[in-house]
């Protein structure tokens, strides 16, 4: 029990990627959730059986959810500034936050457009970053058991943070409250701060002089860092960097990132090839990577 309840916080750290993927989900907010987890663990130590899951008060769930929603929602400011600084209008910037609402994809798109990429190539990079949300949806659909009619509306909030908060809750009711409160607070704040950031950037004028062009890559780095836990992730990242930079001068803008994404299947294939050759270790390797994959797609 205590091990189970300890896992949601680590899942959150693992996901890391917030709507801005946000690392603040990792640190400030993560601590709130960790607190919750340890509270549950405490009950488990007193010998509560799995059946009598401790009833977590709605207020406690709301508090956790707001912690995540507010901390991450504020980082929409960085997106607004970056987007406007990349040459998008305030309206276009706000449309992205309202309609796309998954931070890493938004940052990737404006970066690619600023670099002069073809719109479809730019969209492809942003899309591939958003694919992970499908796997969050799989988890959430079992956990929240939403009526089919509600799902199209809930879908827009299926992102890193709402998944992390929902998975950390002990009951379905708490998970539903956590999902709704995190989703709502994050959506409202993210869009408000996006607007403020975009207006601020327009007022400032030359955002580069203020170093604001470093915000985008810093966001990516903060999202990436907690993912680099094993050699596999580091190898993928290393190869992707080499491909992304090496191909930049020779391929059209936006394309090198898509080619760099091939580092992921390439490393997986190499691993499969190697474990296939060492027949003995193959089963164990397979099992381990399954467990890791399960942990990661939180």
């Amino acid at each position, binding site marked *: 029990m205590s091990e189970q309840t300890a896992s949601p916080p680590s899942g959150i750290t693992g996901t890391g990627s917030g709507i801005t993927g946000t690392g603040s*989900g*990792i*640190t*400030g907010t993560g601590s709130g959730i960790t607190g919750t987890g340890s509270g549950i663990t405490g009950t488990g130590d007193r010998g509560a059986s799995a059946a009598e899951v401790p009833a977590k008060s709605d207020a406690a769930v709301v508090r956790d959810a707001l912690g995540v929603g507010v901390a991450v929602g504020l*980082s929409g400011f*960085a997106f607004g500034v970056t987007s406007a600084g990349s040459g*998008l209008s305030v309206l*276009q910037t706000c449309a*992205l936050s309202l309609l*796309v609402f*998954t931070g*890493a994809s938004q940052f*990737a*798109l404006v*970066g690619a*457009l600023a*670099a*002069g990429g073809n719109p479809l190539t*730019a*969209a492809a990079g*942003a*899309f*591939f970053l958003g694919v992970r*949300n499908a*796997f969050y*949806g*799989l988890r*959430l*659909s079992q956990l929240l058991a*939403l009526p089919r009619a509600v799902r199209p509306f*809930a*879908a827009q909030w*299926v992102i890193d943070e709402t998944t992390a908060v929902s998975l950390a809750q002990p009951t379905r009711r708490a998970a539903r409250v956590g999902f709704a409160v995190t989703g709502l607070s994050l959506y409202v704040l993210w869009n408000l701060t996006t607007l403020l950031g975009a207006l601020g950037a327009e007022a400032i004028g030359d955002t580069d002089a*203020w*170093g604001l062009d470093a915000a985008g*890559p*810093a966001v990516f*780095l*903060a999202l*990436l*860092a907690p*993912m680099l836990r094993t050699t596999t992730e580091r190898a*993928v*990242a290393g190869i*992707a*960097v080499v*491909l992304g*930079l090496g191909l*930049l001068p020779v391929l059209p*803008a936006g394309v090198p*990132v898509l080619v*760099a*994404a091939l*580092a*992921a*299947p390439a490393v*997986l294939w190499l691993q499969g090839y190697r474990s296939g050759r060492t027949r003995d270790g193959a089963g164990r390797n397979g099992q381990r990577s399954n467990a*890791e*994959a399960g942990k*990661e797609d939180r």
Partner: protein
Amino acid sequence: MNIWIAIGVTAVGCYAVKLIGLLVPAGALERPGVKRLAALLPVALLAALTAQQTFADGQALVLDAKAAGLAAAAVALLLRAPFLLVVGVAVVVTAAVRAMTG
């Protein structure tokens, strides 16, 4: 117009993958290989994007103030600084280096 096309395609695509996760039966995407790839794709994309946005100016590779800002952000990450602080450090250091080097 191009920007609106990119926004529209991204919005539709990103919403579609979110909805697919909620709608498909659990078994369909739960294969280990698929999950593993889905976990690794963001790693590759984020690494390439970080490198490009730090070291690229158009199609040329450059080493400018942003590299210093990102190095500072990396240090902040190693010190487990919160997300907003990491981004703030990158911005401030980049601006400072740029101001000093003119």
